[in-house]
């Protein structure tokens, strides 16, 4: 157990350091979601009431697309110089690698959200009517839902042809309940339209189920030959 966490920590620190020096994924994600925000606000010109109803969908779709941009780069880095093959033959538990990658992506996407949310508020004149603090658990659970499966499917599609297009094709159908949960919870909280409890529980269930599945099956994926 100790080695699992120390290895996870080592890989996570390495990924963050690499990202900090290059800033490839973060810059691409930030600019990409900025573009999505601007294009959306050109396409729809909502009133304050309308924007409360649709902002949940817009925000999460923008984050979803941006997440795919980041996820595509996660594993590509490990293919250079056969780093992944080295992982495969090393005695390190595969789950430490997976956890490090998923946590790294979570941190990047959370950073993106922290930067983009104020922009959304400005562009759409958002003001929550419901209990806005509940958006924090929705954000955390929703981001983890996207990232945990995304990291897994990025690894799964790593050796397929045209993997950049494969990832969304696999990730989006599986993410439908999670996306519905995030969008509905956000809409309810912004519009003050009842309780978002069910959707938070749904997101939590989704996270628990798929985190377990990812940890259970990642070794199979990594060693699939």
């Amino acid at each position, binding site marked *: 157990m100790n080695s699992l966490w120390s290895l996870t920590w080592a890989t996570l620190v390495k990924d963050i350091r690499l990202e900090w020096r290059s800033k490839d994924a973060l810059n691409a994600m930030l600019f990409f979601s900025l573009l999505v925000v601007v294009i959306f606000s050109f396409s729809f010109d909502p009133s304050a009431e309308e924007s409360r109803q649709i902002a949940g969908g817009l925000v999460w779709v923008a984050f979803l697309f941006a997440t795919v941009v980041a996820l595509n780069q996660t594993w590509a880095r490990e293919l250079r110089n056969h780093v992944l093959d080295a992982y495969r033959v090393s005695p390190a538990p595969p789950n430490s690698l997976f956890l490090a990658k998923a946590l790294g992506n979570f941190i990047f996407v959370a950073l993106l959200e922290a930067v983009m949310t104020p922009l959304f508020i400005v562009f759409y004149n958002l003001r929550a009517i419901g209990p806005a603090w509940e958006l924090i658990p929705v954000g955390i659970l929703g981001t983890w839902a996207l990232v945990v499966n995304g990291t897994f499917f990025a690894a799964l599609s790593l*050796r397929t042809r045209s993997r950049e297009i494969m990832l969304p094709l696999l990730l989006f159908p*599986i993410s439908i*309940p999670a996306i519905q949960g995030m969008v509905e919870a956000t809409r309810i909280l912004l519009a003050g339209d*009842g309780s978002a409890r069910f959707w938070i529980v749904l997101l939590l269930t989704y996270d628990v189920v798929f985190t377990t599945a990812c940890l259970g099956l990642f070794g199979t994926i990594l060693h*699939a030959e």
Partner: protein
Amino acid sequence: MKRIFPILCFVTALLLVYGLYQALVAAPTERTMGDVQRIFYYHVPSAWTAFCLFFTNLFASIVYLVRRNPKADALAVASAEVGVVFCTIVLITGPIWARPVWGIWWTWDVRLTTTLVLWLIYVAYLVLRRFSDTAQTPVLAAVLAIFGALDVPLVYFSIWFFRTQHPQPVMGNGGSLAPAMLHAFLINLLAFSCFGAMVCWSRFCLELLKREVEEAHAMESLAGAGASPKTSLPLSRSSR
């Protein structure tokens, strides 16, 4: 097994013809919906067959992951492909019926949405199989099948809650069927189950044959390149 196959095909064809007669002629016309209700005799059996095939796919995928038996993988391919075809029939016949009866082509109802998401997941499954042609494809596909199976209950649950929160169109929950209708329905259910099983079986045999041929080709080219065995082995898995 090879001798039974034509006999079973014949029986299935007979059942399908009898089912067609039952559905279009023998079954009484529904009082309020009229003749369009007869699509029900194809819609529901197709859905049943599709779900059975997807279940077969899940089962075969788990067996493959545990045992690594190539036959289980061939069954998974066959059932997923045929299942997608039947699921497509469901998704096409549904709106044809819904338009005159509900007045709308589509609604985000529990069953409709879950079927659509299931269809999307299995199309993604087939795309994965198509885009990945390495030796590890069966493992990746089997893992995806398990993820899909975990996803479906969550979809069902989320839409169920979503829709009970909102007004919904009146569902065709007509209680009990007239005996003649029930008869026609059960015949078609049986006929479609046999039909799906036969198509899946044929596809399964085809997949096994295809693999045999590929293997023979590989062996042949290996034998042809026997003069330089060091370079003939495909060792390209980690070079991409």
